[in-house]
């Protein structure tokens, strides 16, 4: 647990414009409720959206067992914290014409917290 934390802290430092401060994963778990109608956290469990198990660091549209939209297949991005932050802020802006039925998370703190939660738990 501790080594992981250290590792991520180091990884964070090298990502230039990552979400400003490290978020609060406990609060992030609550924020993540907004996502759970469509996204499971268990590996291999896809709903309307793909499982988010281990999403951070994954290439977009990488899972074999989920039918991604053409927009994600073309997106050619990796889910770094920075990309995830931009995506959550305005999903249609980072990946235009994607089919996720979600308007976005306007509060930076919500995004930081939920990304921290995803980083820690969904590995």
């Amino acid at each position: 647990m501790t080594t992981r934390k250290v590792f991520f802290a180091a990884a964070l430092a090298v990502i230039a414009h990552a979400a400003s401060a490290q978020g609060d994963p406990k609060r992030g778990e609550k924020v993540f409720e907004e996502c759970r109608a469509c996204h499971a956290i268990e590996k291999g469990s896809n709903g309307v959206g793909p499982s988010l198990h281990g999403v951070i660091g994954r290439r977009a549209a990488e899972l074999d067992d989920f039918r991604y939209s053409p927009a994600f297949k073309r997106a050619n991005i990796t889910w770094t914290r920075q990309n995830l932050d931009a995506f959550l802020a305005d999903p249609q802006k980072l990946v235009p014409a994607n089919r996720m039925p979600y308007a976005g998370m306007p509060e930076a703190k919500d995004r930081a917290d939920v990304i921290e939660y995803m980083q820690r738990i969904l590995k």
Partner: protein
Amino acid sequence: MATRLKEVDAVIVGLGWTGGILAKELSAAGLKVVALERGKMFSTAEDFQVPQVRDELRYVQRHELMQNAARDTLTIRNNPNQEALPMRRLGSFLPGEGAGGSGMHWSGHTWRWTDMEFKVRSRYEERYGKSFIPADMTIQDWGITYAELEPYYDKFERVAAVSGKAGNIDGQIQPGGNPFEAPRAREYPLPPLTPILANEVFSAAAKNAGYHPFPRPSANASRAYTNPDGVRFGACQYCGFCQRFGCEANAKGSPHMTVIPIAMRNPNFELRTHAWVSKILKDASGKRVTGVTYTNVLNGEEFEQPASIVLLTAYALNNVHLMLLSGLGQPYDPVSQKGVIGKNYCYQTGAGATLFFEGRNFNPFMSAGGSSASADDFNTNWDFDRGKHGWIGGYNLSSGFNTALPIGYRPVPRGTPAWGKEWKAATAKWYQTAMNVGVSGSVMANRYNYFDLDPTYRNAFGQPLMRMTFDYKENEHKMGRHAAQVINDLAKSMNPTRLNEATARTEPWTVVPYQSTHNTGGTIMGTSPRSSALNKYLQSWDYHNLFVVGANVFAHNASYNPTGPVGALAYWTADAVKRYTKNPAPLVSA
């Protein structure tokens, strides 16, 4: 020859909200339950995916999620002197097909009907005298009370993720809610939806006029939510594609993502799709039903499914049709007024004005299914004196948008040509700058509005179609004139640039265009087997192991959408069936 299958504890005919609720509750109680559904199973991920689900032509104009009239429809006429002809294409109402039923393509409006409906005859007689009710108006008490149903309303609201604002908690009037609602034990599970501009403009004017506007309660989750069964809802995205569509965000309370998948996880439950039930079977004693006959429409194979209990939970119209086809109970005769099956068919009525405001932006394409503000001053407000107006019932006054998509919704001021440059200019100018104020009104039961079997036309299985005889009567016309006046006075107080005034309906009911999928009655609940088909637990008076659930049990139709009491009565019936299994006998003595 039909293949006879192994007997089960309960067979469910039709798997929408009512069948789904009963499937989940009874399989959890340990009963072996089989559900037979005409259509297919639906899933949000496969069937309601963006962008395919955003298709007005496919879902609204071509009726993708609806019953296929080529296989089964009704014949219709306005009065017993006409020859009924088949409704060859669905129009005025749109029953759904498939597991989830109309509960997938509804808008989510979820109301609590009160004792004003359940005790309709006794309350009007008490206040206005017996002679106030016209001789042909066959309204009667339902045999149930609001107090009995309150916990079941609460349960359904929580399961379906209803967003709203309470107006009356335990007798305390709550600011912002509907002051005319009956007392509820607690708040709605979710706060009201974000009001759209049309709601605000309407509410301000309604308050000025002395009315009591409030946000319409609707099963569109105003934020992410987990229901008591652990089902997760996403937040409504106000996509504007609600009515006629499945929800891609799992934000609209629907059976296919709540009660049905929970039942399907229970090994006591089995769903057979593409199973068309053509008859309910009865034994020689004439006191019990024994199961159903159905056809697998994927290959034509015929089966008999024996069951200790039969739960008839298809769309309201199809429930009545199956009772008539199976010869269960005595068919209603409007001349002798004897018999009960087919009695008291009711519908709804309405009127509306369109208000055009130059320079405003209503963004009609941004709305939830329930983006309406309503006022019940002429509906559940019992203090409103009907005596001097001479009509019975009520109407809910409202304004908002729901699925204002451009094939169907293109408001232009009256007198605008129907094509050409002038039409284009008006269409472009007013699409986003118009709003409406309208009413949905009750229809009281009438001796001559009823169902029976058609003597001529047949469905794909060679069985007689059901015949609907219906028209609006003087009571509805009087109420319509009152409503049009109220709408127009209110609309004028808002000073629109142009106004298409509301007009009271005078023409007979027609099968086109779309009006409302709120068909009620036909196998009504009540206090006596002489005047009703079912007792207060929706148990057949004649066959004590047959329960019939849906809006077909309503003894008349109110202004409100029917799904609130339909869902509550399904939970109420589930409890009754659980008691029945311990002592299989009539739950009310006749």
